């Protein structure tokens, strides 16, 4: 295909809901990639969850051809990126595969915190940035003010920024022309040994692992022998191709291009995202700079609802990790839930999305334990350890003190709800840092908050207390010493490890009491009375009782018809499969989910 100088690799960065996917769809439509008629709303958000939630989770590459006003034809490779704070890692991965970034700013809302974070990421990666002002069709649009804002806040020249309405199809041509002129063509030497950056991958049942790559140097064709820098396994390339946006085979990928490689790679562990693909016969002397290793922020245990499905779960998590390198996991086991995995996520949304993907894409029913953060434990012997699983906490006698992760939270809200938000932050042990009126209708509040308060029910609370008007972002800023205790739940005197959690001393009592109350409602009555207790150390702080069942009998057999009765008993027996035993108490797996979800007051 064409000259390298006619290739433009770029991504789009934007705040959630500023119209990133819509603009991407328009670009594809205008370049003839898809006809308007065939276009499913929001083409790039191909996962069900993405469409339902209206957000982009995965980056999705697509190739387009554009005939510019100068008469030349250009190849555009667009890599869509997620906007949510939890997915910054995905963003940084796609940035490394591009030379330019379109920055979309909403013409009425202006520059948002998350936009800034991504802009800085793009600048760190030496990307050219093209500001585009979207939603100019809205009555509240104030493009000139927003232009000034971009110049003042970000320090970018926005005077030539295209004014568009992706929704209405206004200004799309300006954007296409600007892509040609603003972004540099890719560098790289076609004759040098192959160096390709793996920026994503997924598992295809027929083709094996599909690698999404950006060719930095050299070229790769079907039949070539390839290996990655970190593994010595050699594979033969079966197919190369580009994204249109579906996989479209193309013979050979050359320096500067973005595409995919299929090489019958069966073992998921051999090809990590961020690694460099090389030619096995003529390996490049050194790899490309990879990605920064991500730090998990939120942790939880994931167990199969049906204990016999452990291997299916393992398979599912491995395949998801291939597609999302930020997912971290290790095998774990719990007395109550059996074998499962302890997983680390970039944030709450990331965790939720992963849980949903396991259930939807792999048809597995899972139980997840209460989300936890990683605590720093300073032991009496001076040793410092990190604990994210309450059951791994050392005995109290060995703990000198504990520290918890703190985040800086930016909360945006109409001024009407300031009181409610401040109350909430106070309840959640927040430290007030400052308040800024962004305009008449929007206030920015800054707080330092313990992360473990945020993962509990902060998000739900802030939404319900502000009728959904407030939004917030947070970033980890460090650890602070705190009075933390391990709260245990005991059923009939036995500790249920899956329900243990690390909480602040001040909220332990309330939390324990709520848990006991919820459990009392959720645990089915047994043949005997079951005390439900919350305890700190050995001390009971709350107690409820599940009364013994008194009636569980089938009425008479009319005219000897016992089949219905038999079915009922069989169903009851079937239900036992979903039960977990805590000592002598049988608890349906769903209870663990319910309890952890209904933890709101």
């Amino acid at each position: 295909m064409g000259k390298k100088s006619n290739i433009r690799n770029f991504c789009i960065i934007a705040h959630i809901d500023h119209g990133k996917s819509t603009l991407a769809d328009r670009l594809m439509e205008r370049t003839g990639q898809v006809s308007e008629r065939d276009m499913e709303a929001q083409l790039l958000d191909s996962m069900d969850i993405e469409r339902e939630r209206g957000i982009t989770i995965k980056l999705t590459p697509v190739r387009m051809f554009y005939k510019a006003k100068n008469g030349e034809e250009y190849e555009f490779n667009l890599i869509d990126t997620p906007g949510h704070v939890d997915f910054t890692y995905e963003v940084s991965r796609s940035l490394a595969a591009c030379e330019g970034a379109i920055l979309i700013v909403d013409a009425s809302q202006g520059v948002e915190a998350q936009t800034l974070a991504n802009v800085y990421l793009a600048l760190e990666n030496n990307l050219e940035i093209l500001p585009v002002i979207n939603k100019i069709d809205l009555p509240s649009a104030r493009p000139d003010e927003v232009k000034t804002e971009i110049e003042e806040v970000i320090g970018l020249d926005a005077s030539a920024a295209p004014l568009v309405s992706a929704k209405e199809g206004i200004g799309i041509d300006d954007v296409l022309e600007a892509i040609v002129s603003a972004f540099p063509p890719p560098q790289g030497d076609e004759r040098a040994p192959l160096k390709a950056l793996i920026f994503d991958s997924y598992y295809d049942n027929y083709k094996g692992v599909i690698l999404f790559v950006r060719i930095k140097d050299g070229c790769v064709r079907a039949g070539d022998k390839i290996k990655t820098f970190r593994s010595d396994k050699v594979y033969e390339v079966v197919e190369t191709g580009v994204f249109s946006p579906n996989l479209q085979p193309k013979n050979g990928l050359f320096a500067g291009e973005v595409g995919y490689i299929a090489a019958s790679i069966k073992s998921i562990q051999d090809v990590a995202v961020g690694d460099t693909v090389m030619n096995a016969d003529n390996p490049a002397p050194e790899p490309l700079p990879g990605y920064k290793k991500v730090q998990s922020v939120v942790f939880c245990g994931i167990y199969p609802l049906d204990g016999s499905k452990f291997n299916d779960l393992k398979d599912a998590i491995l395949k998801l990790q291939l597609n999302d390198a930020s997912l971290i996991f290790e095998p774990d086991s719990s007395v109550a839930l059996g074998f499962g995995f302890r997983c680390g996520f970039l944030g709450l949304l990331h965790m939720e999305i992963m849980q949903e993907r396991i259930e939807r894409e792999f048809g597995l029913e899972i139980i997840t334990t209460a989300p936890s953060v990683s605590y720093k434990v300073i032991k009496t012997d001076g040793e410092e350890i990190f604990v994210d699983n309450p059951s791994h906490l050392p005995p109290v006698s060995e703990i000198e003190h504990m520290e918890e992760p703190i985040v800086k939270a930016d909360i945006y809200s109409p001024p009407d709800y300031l009181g409610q938000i401040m109350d909430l932050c106070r309840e959640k042990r927040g430290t007030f840092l400052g308040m800024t009126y962004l305009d008449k209708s929007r206030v920015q509040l800054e707080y330092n908050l313990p992360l473990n308060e945020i993962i509990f029910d902060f998000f739900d609370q802030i939404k319900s207390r502000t009728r959904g008007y407030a939004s917030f972002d947070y970033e980890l800023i460090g650890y602070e010493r705190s009075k933390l205790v391990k709260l245990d739940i005991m059923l009939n005197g036995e500790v249920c490890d899956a329900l243990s959690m690390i909480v602040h001393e001040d909220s332990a009592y309330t939390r324990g009491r709520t848990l006991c109350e919820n459990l009392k409602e959720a645990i089915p009555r047994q043949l005997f009375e079951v005390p439900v207790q919350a305890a700190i150390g050995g001390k009971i702080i709350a107690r409820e009782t599940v009364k013994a069942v008194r009636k569980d009998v089938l009425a008479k057999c009319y005219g000897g018809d016992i089949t219905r009765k038999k079915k009922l008993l069989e169903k009851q027996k079937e239900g036992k499969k979903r039960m977990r035993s805590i000592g002598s108490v049988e608890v349906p797996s769903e209870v663990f989910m319910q309890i952890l979800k209904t933890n709101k007051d």
Partner: protein
Amino acid sequence: MAGIYVHIPFCKSKCTYCDFASYPDKLCFAESYMACVYREMAMRSPELEGMTFDTLYIGGGTPSVIDEKYIAMLVAAAKKHFKLAENAEITIEMNPGTVSAGKISLYEKCGINRFSVGLQSAIDSQLENIGRIHNLKDYLACAKLLKGKNFSADIMIGLKNQSIADIEYSIEVAASSGASHISMYALSPEDGTPIYTDYLNGELPDGDTVAEMYAAGVKRLCALGFERYEVSNFCKKGKQSRHNLNYWKRGNYIGFGVAASSCVNNVRMTNTFDLDEYFKCILSNHFAVVNSEEVDKDGQEEEYIMLALRTSAGIDLAEFASLFGSDFTKKYAEALQKTRGYIEVTDGFVKIKDEFLFVQNSIIVEYLRLRG
């Protein structure tokens, strides 16, 4: 042991809890229906030639609502087509509002020797609530006609506004009127019945209250000399319903009429619930079976356990060993261990302790295997 069941699907009016095949508006079809039942018996007769039947049970609906001559013909047909034992127990269900001296005397003349009367409650307002056509006075008149005969009374627990005192009173009435057998059933509100609305609106006593009332009822029955022989059945010495015992022992039984169930040589069958379809089948000389299932060895064992644990006697270990060729206490050691607090193992029997019969499902499921 083997039994015959005949279903008479007619009623004067439908009770609010009634969920079975009964048609209050189709009494005019009684004659044709009974003719079909006789014919169904004739059709079934050849294959059951060698079997001796110990019981005949005429249930419903309300068998006493149809002309007594059809009942007499029914008993005659049963005797003609099947080998009925000399001392066979022949029971008919009756509604106290539909009996007369003449009826009862004809019943007796044709061989009926046991009567089951639907008292349900001795409180008139409660009877009215559930749509019964009789009141206490009718019951007492009926019981007077049955004086000295072998009869049973049904009592229901869990009715709207029912108190422990009401239940005790109903039991007293049944016992003092001469019933030698009392069936005490906890009402189960089924979706689609009028009483289900009461249930949804929380107007019926909840499970705990029912359990409490039931326990009080059991206590009173025992004080009056009744012995519990199954979770819901009580009787004076030797007055068990042999027909029902046969169900719980997994004996053979053959059912005739709409919705009747059979279990012969481990094949379970159910007739159609649809009256018209039943007519069509029988009149064209076809059986009216809509469901038929052969119970395999594991299924038989499972049924045996689940039914035997309903009874106060429990599982007869020797019988179990001879039927299934294994030692119950060894094969089910794990379940026995798990349910040890609720089970009694004594001289050759394994049974659920009396005080846990009312929560037996939770115990029985420990003895069932998971399928699939």
